[in-house]
């Protein structure tokens, strides 16, 4: 980064998020084919999360002083579709930077130097690292929304944006808040007649080719010809300075001198203020306005176009000023077109070039888009096919109309080659060119050019009425006579009260619209009620979300304040977030799987629409009790299947208000006893997966009770036993004791002490009961193939299970070692409660 740019660098960085790093910038960049004076673009290479993008920013001040001076014009992601080349411009001190993205091409002129070399190198480097086409550019989306509307519309390079997937996303989301201003402007324009009234303004247009003569005479005879003062003056000169200096450096003292004469020559019956002065070499255009109207002038801008030598030098061309007076946009163009009788086609071309290349910084940017256009100047069109003598003779005979028929401008206009749609008033004055200096005598020199109406004033637009069109013969210092035209022009003036009313109306309408384009959905059911939900017996219910709004709806279930997750642990939502297009529907499935002791399902879900409302969805359902998920201390207090208890009885049991009936839970005994009798010799007893239905049958058998034997194979019963022990409310070895147990695992006596001292009677009994069963199992290891280590690690994980379920089960050596002690040592009766 060149020194001195660091301030600007910080300003550019401020335009982006802190995580979006501006790697390098380039100032004073202009668009190719734009006015070269318009070097108000800033290029910035920005990196986010190792993806790069090129930003083109327009700076309202050069250099920018605050980030608000910058607006984003173009964003180009740097990926495999991006390319960058430089092309030298012949005999210029700048190069063209050609940026291509798919089929879109952007060209910028940058000054040759270290800055441009570095910048181009950085771009190419960024492209090199972007080979991975999975780079994520979603971070750019927000910037497409900020690009101002006028740029989107006017920049031809933006017209074909179909390649930009990102842009499409942005539009699909209907980010209308950003263009609220444009929408309102547009609507106001449509309803303009409701809040404006027409007021007539007098506009004086003057044009004079002064032939490089020094400004030495009063202009009053020309500018103050009419008694009543006009409201607006637009005065154009050509050839105010024919010196080489003026031509090469576009700088001349004549500008101020002539302008002073203009100001002095304005109608003395009113006071005027200069609105804008534009000059290119010898062409000068000044717009003045009566002081009283000055407050209603706004958005003034000017531009100049050279069409002279090499098609671009300023010896010929045009200068233009645009402004808005009240609610009407005015454009004044002063031109000096190519000379010589035969060059009318060149003149037509100059006219086209001026139209094409004048580009105001304010909207509208082109000449043609203004409400009223006044075109003046030395158009240089001559009289064809007649000799000097013939012209002069006709003039003496006052046959002006015969001459006007062979006037090139009239001919070319008739053929539609120039100033199409423009109007010119009737010419009643003598040709204004070419006179001998200081006389009213047409050219007596050797060349003896035939007289011609080179100096003309035309107009285009609604409500323009010309009242005068004349030349001023008494102005004799030039070989041209000045011409002036007086117009009564209809200017649309805003009635502030009515304007306000329409504006309020529109704002209301837009508010309504803003509400209408909020995402809207309907949900077919906001109450999802599950049938009786049973332990590990999943159920699901569906609801349908329909997008009834005008824009895509992005929904997501969001967590409630103070809750860790968007739904309870027994619920799954599929999908929990998605996007629905207008008119489309999305089915959402709620899946319940009960693995803990829950009395009733109750949850309120918040279905959030991005940028819109929230809908509450209530989930409810009754749960069936089960011996699974209960605490050992409750279970040992019941002698009957759990579902045979009344609510009251169960309530008492849960509160431990009833006596302990069994030393181990009835269900545990039933399972172990069954295995003791039927499973000791079963190979891989604990390792086969039973059918889900089989497990449910066994669960029901335990919970409801039955006279029938256990409905299941020994393997299914064994799996049920593992499930039972895995889902008790507390593990057999409670969480808080697990660390000291595993720490003591390498010493049986310590383990024994722990069991004896720390575990309560119920848990201790259950633990010893299971270990004794496992010891029994090991007696048949030849048949069932189990050894103590395997069983210890299997049951270690269950008896000392982790607090967080679903965490990937991993055999803990400590837990296994702890249990191992009790599988290989004699479990003396001293371990059992006395």
């Amino acid at each position, binding site marked *: 980064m060149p020194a001195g740019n660091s301030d600007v660098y910080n300003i550019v960085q401020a335009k982006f998020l802190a995580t979006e790093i501006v790697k390098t910038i380039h100032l004073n960049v202009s668009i190719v084919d734009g006015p070269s004076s318009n070097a108000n673009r800033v290029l910035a290479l920005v990196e986010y999360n190792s993806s790069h993008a090129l930003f083109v920013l327009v700076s*309202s001040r050069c250099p920018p002083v*605050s980030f*608000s*001076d910058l*607006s984003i014009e173009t964003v180009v992601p740097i990926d495999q579709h991006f390319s960058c080349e430089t092309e030298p411009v012949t005999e210029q001190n700048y190069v063209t930077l050609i940026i291509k993205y798919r089929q879109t091409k952007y060209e910028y002129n940058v000054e040759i130097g270290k800055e441009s070399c570095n910048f181009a190198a950085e771009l190419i480097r960024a492209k090199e690292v972007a080979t991975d086409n999975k780079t994520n550019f979603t971070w750019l989306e927000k910037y497409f929304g900020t690009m101002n509307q006028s740029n989107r519309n006017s920049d031809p390079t933006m017209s074909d944006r179909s390649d930009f997937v990102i842009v499409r996303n942005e539009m699909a989301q209907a980010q209308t808040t950003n263009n*609220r*201003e444009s929408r*309102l*402007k547009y609507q*106001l324009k449509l309803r303009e007649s409701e809040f404006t009234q027409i007021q007539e303004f007098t506009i004086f247009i003057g044009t004079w080719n002064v032939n490089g003569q020094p400004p030495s005479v009063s202009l009053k005879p020309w500018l103050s010809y009419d008694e009543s003062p006009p409201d607006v003056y637009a005065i154009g000169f050509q050839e105010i300075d024919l010196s080489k200096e003026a031509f090469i450096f576009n700088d001349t003292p004549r500008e101020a001198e002539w302008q002073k004469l203009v100001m002095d020559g304005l109608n003395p019956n009113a006071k005027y203020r*200069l*609105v*804008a*002065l*534009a*000059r290119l070499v010898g062409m000068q255009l000044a717009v003045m306005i009566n002081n009283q109207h000055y*407050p*209603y*002038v*706004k*958005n*003034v*801008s*000017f531009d100049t176009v050279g069409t002279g030598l090499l098609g671009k030098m300023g010896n010929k061309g045009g200068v233009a000023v645009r402004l808005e007076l009240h*609610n009407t946009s005015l454009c004044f163009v002063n031109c000096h077109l190519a000379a010589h009788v035969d060059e009318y086609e060149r003149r037509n071309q100059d006219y086209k070039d001026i139209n094409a290349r004048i580009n105001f*910084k*304010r909207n509208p940017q082109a000449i043609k888009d203004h409400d009223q256009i006044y075109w003046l100047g030395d158009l240089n069109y001559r009289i064809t096919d007649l000799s000097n003598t013939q012209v002069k003779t006709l003039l003496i005979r006052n046959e002006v109309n015969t001459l006007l028929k062979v006037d090139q401008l009239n001919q070319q206009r008739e053929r539609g080659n120039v100033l199409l749609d423009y109007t010119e008033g009737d010419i009643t004055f003598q040709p204004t060119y070419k006179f001998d200096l200081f006389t009213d005598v047409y050219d007596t020199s050797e060349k003896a050019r035939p007289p011609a109406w080179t100096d003309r004033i035309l107009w285009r637009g609604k409500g323009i009425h010309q009242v005068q069109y004349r030349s001023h013969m008494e102005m004799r210092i030039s070989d041209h006579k000045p011409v002036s035209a007086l117009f009564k022009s209809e200017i649309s003036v*805003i009635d502030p009260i009515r*304007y306000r009313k329409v*504006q309020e109306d529109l*704002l*209301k309408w*837009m*508010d*309504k619209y*803003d*509400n209408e384009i*909020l995402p809207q959905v309907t949900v077919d059911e*906001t109450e999802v009620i599950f049938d009786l939900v049973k332990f590990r017996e999943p159920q699901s219910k569906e609801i349908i979300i329909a997008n009834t709004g005008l824009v895509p709806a992005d929904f997501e279930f969001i967590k*409630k*304040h*103070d809750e860790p997750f968007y739904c309870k642990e027994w619920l799954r939502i599929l999908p929990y977030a998605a996007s629905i297009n207008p008119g489309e529907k999305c089915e959402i499935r709620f899946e319940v799987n009960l693995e803990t002791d829950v009395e009733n399902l109750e949850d*309120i879900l*918040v*279905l959030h629409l991005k940028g*819109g*409302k*929230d*809908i*509450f969805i*209530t989930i409810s359902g009754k749960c069936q009790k089960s011996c699974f998920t209960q605490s050992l201390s409750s279970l040992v207090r019941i002698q009957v299947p759990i579902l045979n208890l009344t609510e009251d009885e169960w309530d008492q049991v849960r509160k431990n208000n009833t006596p302990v009936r069994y030393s181990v839970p009835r269900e545990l005994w039933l399972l172990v006893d069954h295995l003791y009798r039927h499973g000791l010799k079963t190979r891989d007893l604990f390792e086969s997966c039973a059918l889900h239905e089989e497990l449910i049958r066994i669960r029901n058998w335990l919970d409801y009770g039955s006279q029938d034997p256990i409905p299941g194979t020994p393997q299914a019963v064994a799996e049920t036993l593992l499930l039972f022990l895995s889902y008790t409310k507390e593990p057999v070895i409670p969480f808080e004791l697990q660390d000291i147990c595993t720490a003591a695992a390498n010493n049986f006596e310590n383990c024994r002490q722990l069991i004896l001292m720390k575990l309560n009677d119920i848990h201790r009994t259950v633990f010893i009961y299971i270990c004794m069963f496992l010891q029994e199992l090991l007696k048949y290891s030849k048949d069932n193939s189990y050894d103590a280590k395997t069983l210890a690690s299997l049951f270690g994980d269950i008896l000392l299970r982790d607090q967080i379920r679903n965490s990937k089960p991993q055999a803990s050596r400590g837990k296994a070692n702890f249990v191992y002690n009790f599988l290989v040592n004699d479990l003396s009766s001293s371990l059992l409660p006395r």
Partner: protein
Amino acid sequence: MSAGPYNYSYIFKYIIIGDMGVGKSCLLHQFTEKKFMADCPHTIGVEFGTRIIEVSGQKIKLQIWDTAGQERFRAVTRSYYRGAAGALMVYDITRRSTYNHLSSWLTDTRNLTNPSTVIFLIGNKCDLEGQRDVTYEEASKFAEENGLLFVEASAKTGDNVEEAFLETAKKIYQSIQDGRLDLNAAESGVQHKPSQPGRTNLNGDQAGVKDNCAC
């Protein structure tokens, strides 16, 4: 530079709270659409409305959250109070129970919003004078004792609806002007949106006139 006529300078967040069936959604609808919504279904969730208003020449965008009034949603709707600059607390003048619950709504509001949140009490359905169950005086006294702004309004006729929303905004704007409301506090419920420079407008932005002028 002041905001142009198209842009708003502030966003204020409002919540509307109160018992089920007092007419919260109808008030919102009347305010945003200028229409009475008959047979308005119960709000199951939080509806969202927006309108741009003007206070002291400033355009303000109101972002209004209309909450479900059902008791069973109370715990969930509490999370929407956060960051509200204005709270419209609504009861139904024809149903005393909705008035009796105000103190509980007020407690929630005080606990869950910040001290500068403007609370406006609205006695809705004042068009149903014949069925009145809560006198104006009584509610007015309650509002006074608790430092609340108060009107009786009708979402059906539109009476005082505009006023309630606008008065709340005025009060919030005053707090900003007085410096009582800290715009930088995350939960102030107000966002300031400085308008973008460089934009000119129909009302004659003179700053724009000179800058391209060579005079």
